[in-house]
């Protein structure tokens, strides 16, 4: 009943909704710390407007949204620069408003008006908004919300390409090792999406930035943080073994430096890490065009490597046979090096 009371006061047209949101967000600027009560009231107003927007975009659980209204709302939000306000006000929004915004965000981005993604185009023209979202991982209160919004953006190749190429991409190598596990793992999810969602974009990026990227990646693989080591090792095998990245892989397995990293990880105290390391290490050994330096390293450590590999087993699992076959092949290859 109280809801219907509010409904009577709420604007009914998409244009009015967009305008109300804009005004209530801008009103937040005029409040200062001294006016605590006024700020709270302004935040409540924002929250009400977000609920209205949410209802318009996704219905109320009983009825479906009006697609024509959604299109009008999307156009209006872009025209009035509401998207910029939404992103920049994130740090001061209330908890529930933030949740509602995240929910609306994915709908706004995915909505097509005729053949155009209006919101995506808007972000392309205001691309610094993405940098803002990335930097938000430093703010624990909003990191997870921004992470969800970022991953929605990354679904579009043009936006993913921008983030990979931007200076703020380097920040991910710091964020994935943050002490808060929830923030670090969310940052890693975004990082992983960036490197696996659009394989051609990734291939171009890695080709152009091979040295800088793998320099930084080595720090993840050798991190003192167990979770960082394990996740980065697993992700490496995921994107390196993609066929568009085959040239990157061929370059990677020529380098003794990275072979040493894998050999170190093969001796990790963690069984899971050992197994993941094996899947990269085997490519170095199986390479028919091994450079001389790689052969020397493998020969010098032959005995230790053979001991290590004989004792390596995945335990239970359906891939026992395949793993054992691969292991036997690698063992024979290493034994053959002394001949």
């Amino acid at each position, binding site marked *: 009943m109280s809801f219907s009371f509010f409904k009577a006061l709420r604007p009914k047209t998409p244009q009015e909704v967009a305008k109300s949101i804009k005004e209530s967000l801008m009103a937040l600027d005029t409040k200062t710390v001294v006016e605590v009560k006024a700020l709270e009231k302004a935040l409540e107003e924002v929250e009400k407007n977000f609920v209205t927007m949410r209802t318009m975009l996704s219905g109320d659980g009983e009825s479906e949204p009006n697609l024509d209204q959604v299109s009008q709302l999307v156009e209006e939000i872009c025209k009035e620069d509401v998207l910029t306000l939404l992103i920049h006000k994130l740090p001061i929004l209330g908890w529930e408003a933030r949740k509602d915004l995240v929910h609306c965000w994915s709908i706004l981005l995915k909505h097509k008006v005729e053949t155009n993604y209006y919101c995506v185009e808007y972000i392309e023209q205001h691309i610094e908004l993405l940098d803002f979202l990335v930097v938000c991982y430093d703010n624990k209160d909003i990191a997870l919300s921004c992470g969800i919004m970022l991953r929605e953006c990354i679904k579009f190749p043009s936006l993913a390409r921008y983030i990979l190429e931007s200076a703020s991409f380097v920040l991910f190598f710091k964020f994935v090792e943050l002490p808060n596990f929830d923030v670090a*793992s969310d940052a890693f999810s975004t990082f992983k999406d960036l490197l696996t969602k659009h394989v051609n974009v990734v291939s171009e990026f890695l080709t152009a930035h091979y040295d800088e990227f793998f320099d930084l990646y080595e720090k993840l693989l050798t991190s003192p943080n167990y979770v960082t080591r394990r996740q980065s090792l697993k992700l490496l095998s995921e994107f390196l073994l993609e066929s568009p990245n085959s040239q990157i892989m061929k370059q990677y397995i020529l380098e003794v430096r990275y072979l040493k990293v894998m050999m170190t990880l093969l001796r990790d105290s963690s069984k899971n890490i050992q197994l993941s390391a094996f899947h990269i290490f085997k490519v170095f050994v199986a390479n028919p065009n091994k450079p001389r330096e790689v052969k020397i390293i493998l020969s010098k450590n032959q005995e230790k490597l053979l001991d290590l590999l004989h004792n390596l087993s995945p335990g239970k699992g359906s891939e026992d046979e395949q793993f054992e076959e691969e292991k036997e092949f690698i063992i024979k290859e290493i034994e053959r090096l002394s001949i």
Partner: protein
Amino acid sequence: MEKKKYPIGEEHYLLYEEIGQGVSASVHRALCLPFNEVVAIKILDFERDNCDLNNVSREAQTMILVDHPNVLKSHCSFVSDHNLWVVMPFMSGGSCLHILKAAHPDGFEEVVIATVLKEVLKGLEYLHHHGHIHRDVKAGNILIDSRGAVKLGDFGVSACLFDSGDRQRTRNTFVGTPCWMAPEVMEQLHGYNFKADIWSFGITALELAHGHAPFSKFPPMKVLLMTLQNAPPGLDYERDRKFSKSFKQMIASCLVKDPSKRPSASKLLKHSFFKQARSSDTIVKKLLEGLPALGDRMEALKRKEEDMLAQKKMPDGKMEELSQNEYKRGISGWNFNLDDMKAQASLIHDFDDAMSDINHAGSSSSLSTLDSLDKQLPSAIHKPSRSADMEENDEMRRQLASALLVDSAVNDAKTRFEKSDDDSSIASSSHEPQTSSSCPDDHVNNHLGEKSDMENGGRSVEGMATHYYHRRGCSSSILPEATLLPIRAESNTNDSEKPQNLPHNVSSCNATSVPQTGEDVLTELPSRVSKSSANSDDTDEKSKVPVVQQRGRFKVTSENVDPEKVAPSPLLQKSHSMQVFSQHNTASIHPTLPLLPASDATSSNLSGYSLFPVLHSVLQTNILQREGILSLMKQITVGDSSADGTCNPAQVAATEKSLLEAAHEREKELLHEITDLQWRLICTQEELQKLKTENAQV
């Protein structure tokens, strides 16, 4: 709204005793040193076998993002070596499952249930509003703090907060927990949504009312089959008279097989049942006062489980030995030509691979022929380790009887044994009051327990496939108990008399009575057969009761009618044909009713025969064979009735003669049906694997 920032790093916390343990995590009471506040810390070892980093991350993030008084959230989480520490509020009351086990084994009062469930429902409403499907709603995940606040916990399928029995065994866990799993989650035909949690919520309501979830005594595979094939469980209008009508209606509205017909959490909150909900003070008074501390309760439960494990080890070895013997005997007992033998062998091989357990093959092959059973019984009797002790004989027969059931081939032997262990512990606890005092109430309790077992048996019958072989198997399993327990026999007789008074349309025909003979062993055969028939009759009546209730429920809520009509699932259609079969079977039972009066004479002779195990087993074998013949005759009779509309005595006599000649043919047909069953089992297994894979991807 500024949130309290809990410190990151294990140096800021002091761990106290363990208050929970699961597959891959343990939970400790702990002190947050900077705030001097008691918290709960879940420590999850990333190196455990089934730890999936993606699942853990998702759960950690969900718990940070939730902010609702009825949903458990985490204050912070951090990595320490290869462990994840999750800091949470300390829920000193523990889970509702713990409280049920510790102090309310028969369930909570209705007002308590309404209060707890309303809070859970608010939490569910919040989660669903924000796009989360909990997928594991059950008493074990409903937590209570010292002030009586109720929170829904555990957002990961692979991780858990407090101890929940099923979760202890990885093999038993699917997407959620079988007893609480919604039918559409199992089927994976169209995917599932928030409504799956509503089904689990309904099962949880029954759990709080009875002290355990429906079907909780059965192994996981059987739970899956029963959930898909049976009518939805609910409160019994007779047995659960103490609960209100609105409570029964609320549960019925949740346990509708068509998810689109179930209410949303918001809608359900408006149900009249929740008007009686009270404040959290009620929870403190009714549930928490007098309870020992959570850590102490955990210790007690652990000790109990260790005792059960110790008992389990020896029987496990025996079970394996028995299965091996059955397997060998099964092979040697075959009478087929070489091609048939090869076909069977290859089939068993496939079966073995599918189940990854040779015990199943053993159980399966023991079903091939009665000859196998014939050889089996004397061999079992002659084992030196076998004593004449009544209890041990009872256990032996129960095992042999269960080996006859096709369902035993479906279930993992170990899992099944674990379940039966639970049953025995329940039985022993119910007997305990009787030894301490001789009050009539305790005696009644004992009988109620037996009725409960019978009721479960009824459900079991209902859940079985339509093949008649299963019916006979079920009868066989009842027989040994009847012969060993005079009290039970008497109880069954009383039960069977009640159904006779109920008006129901059964086509009648003249029954052929087996002629009585002189004073010798054979005198007892007709009586035993009639007793078996009486038990079958009783079972059928039990299985009919849910249908009657269903009709009553249809009148009360129209929602129950529509799902039955529009049931798209082939499994639901199977359930329908099962009902038809049940009616026919009821008709066929009628001819043997005149034999019932003879059952009284049997009880006086029971004790005499129990002293002669060898003779006893021979008698049992003869009874089984006799019963098989009678069953075949009944089946033919049913066929005749449906064709001609009447039952001709002369025709029955002729049928009986030709029936004996056709026994061998029927045996082959049964073998064919068993083969089909095995194939369907393998298909089911594949679907399960697909389901697991799909879940892992999600």
